[in-house]
């Protein structure tokens, strides 16, 4: 953005600061200061698991605008009064004979994939290497991994503003975004009705976990990734 003047740059900086998530540290700090010195602290664990309301909900002057849309990585989520028409759904079955070749997938992406713990998701059933993304499929969930670069296509999700199904959360300290069941995703003009996803971004990659039963399950899976 070399064409930004100083005012624009300052405005962008301030906007980035407002976009940072809130975490309620009160209980975690209290647990730490009441724990015996040198003892194991539950507070740190609690801080990671405690998820406050969206940062934007805590910022009065940003509240109205933030109700419009949220985003993470190369995906934005927009609240709308009426969902746009979808031409299909993302209902999905793993390919019958897709090879499970992590090395090939990581080579295609150019970085290591932070894999969820096998005890939570079971063995990988399939890995599909697509253009600019990799999809890993387990019995109950599937994970799309993309690099976050200026060339990565921007995806747009639409959620019904009355349902309030999109909300920022934290997964092991990493900002994440939960979007509940029944929203529409627009990928290069193709609009599909889709189920729940948890989006997070780490180490320059966007992770999209789909079809977890609920936000707690999704966050647990995301936190196990590494």
């Amino acid at each position, binding site marked *: 953005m070399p064409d930004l003047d100083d005012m624009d740059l300052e405005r962008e*900086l301030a906007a980035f600061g407002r976009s940072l998530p809130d975490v309620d540290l009160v209980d975690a700090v*209290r647990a730490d200061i009441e724990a015996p010195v040198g003892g194991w602290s539950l507070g740190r664990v609690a801080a990671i698991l405690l998820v406050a309301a969206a940062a934007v909900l805590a910022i009065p002057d940003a509240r109205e605008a933030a109700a419009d*849309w949220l985003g*993470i990585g190369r995906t934005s989520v927009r609240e709308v009064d009426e969902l746009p028409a979808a031409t299909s759904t993302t209902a999905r079955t793993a390919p019958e004979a897709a090879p499970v070749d992590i090395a090939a997938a990581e080579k295609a992406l150019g970085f290591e994939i932070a894999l969820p713990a096998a005890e939570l998701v079971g063995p990988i059933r399939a890995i599909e290497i697509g253009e600019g993304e990799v999809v890993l499929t387990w019995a109950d969930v599937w994970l799309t991994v993309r690099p976050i670069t200026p060339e990565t296509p921007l995806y747009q999700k639409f959620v019904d503003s009355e349902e309030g199904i999109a909300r920022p959360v934290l997964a092991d300290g990493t900002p994440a975004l939960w979007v509940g069941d029944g929203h529409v995703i627009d990928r290069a003009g193709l609009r599909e009705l889709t189920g729940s996803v948890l989006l997070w971004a780490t*180490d320059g990659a966007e992770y999209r976990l789909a079809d977890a039963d609920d936000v707690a399950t999704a966050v647990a899976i995301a936190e196990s990734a590494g």
Partner: protein
Amino acid sequence: MREEVPLDDSALVRAARSGRHDAFDELVRRHQRAALQVATAVAGSSRAADAAQEGFVRAFRKLHQFDETRGTFRPWLLRIVANAARNELRRLDRHRKIDMTVASLAVAGSEDDPGAALARRQEVGDAMAGLSADDRLILGLRWWAELTEAEMADVLAVARGTVKSRLSRAMTRLRAELEEEAADA
């Protein structure tokens, strides 16, 4: 219980020193957003919560050192948080680039293209991540935690004139990072 908590930070500090943990709860509640912003600036998004929490715990243990005649609580606290964040950074892999991730966006109504705004904001995060911890801290204090120059001088333990010059240099380097990103794209 919360109705009984005094409103002034210094009064809360005095109450906390006397054993009122609920008074310190209130201080955490008041300043946790700024603490998280400062911790993010120094240590990155994924380490911010741990660093901010550690900062609050250290501040609690140092409450007896806080001198209300020499300044207000917030800069004193944020200096401790910034140091905790630096330690967090050192404790982990210091050579690994920190992450600055856009978690949510609040966009002015005039911005019709959320995708472009999202990308632009992440570019700023990426450029911040390319700066030194000192530059990130001073930019975070000014533009995220929205401290005054006097408060920033307290946090950094420098003169106000030094704050101005450091802030100006950090902005210049941020702009250079953005230009470099644009050139690489």
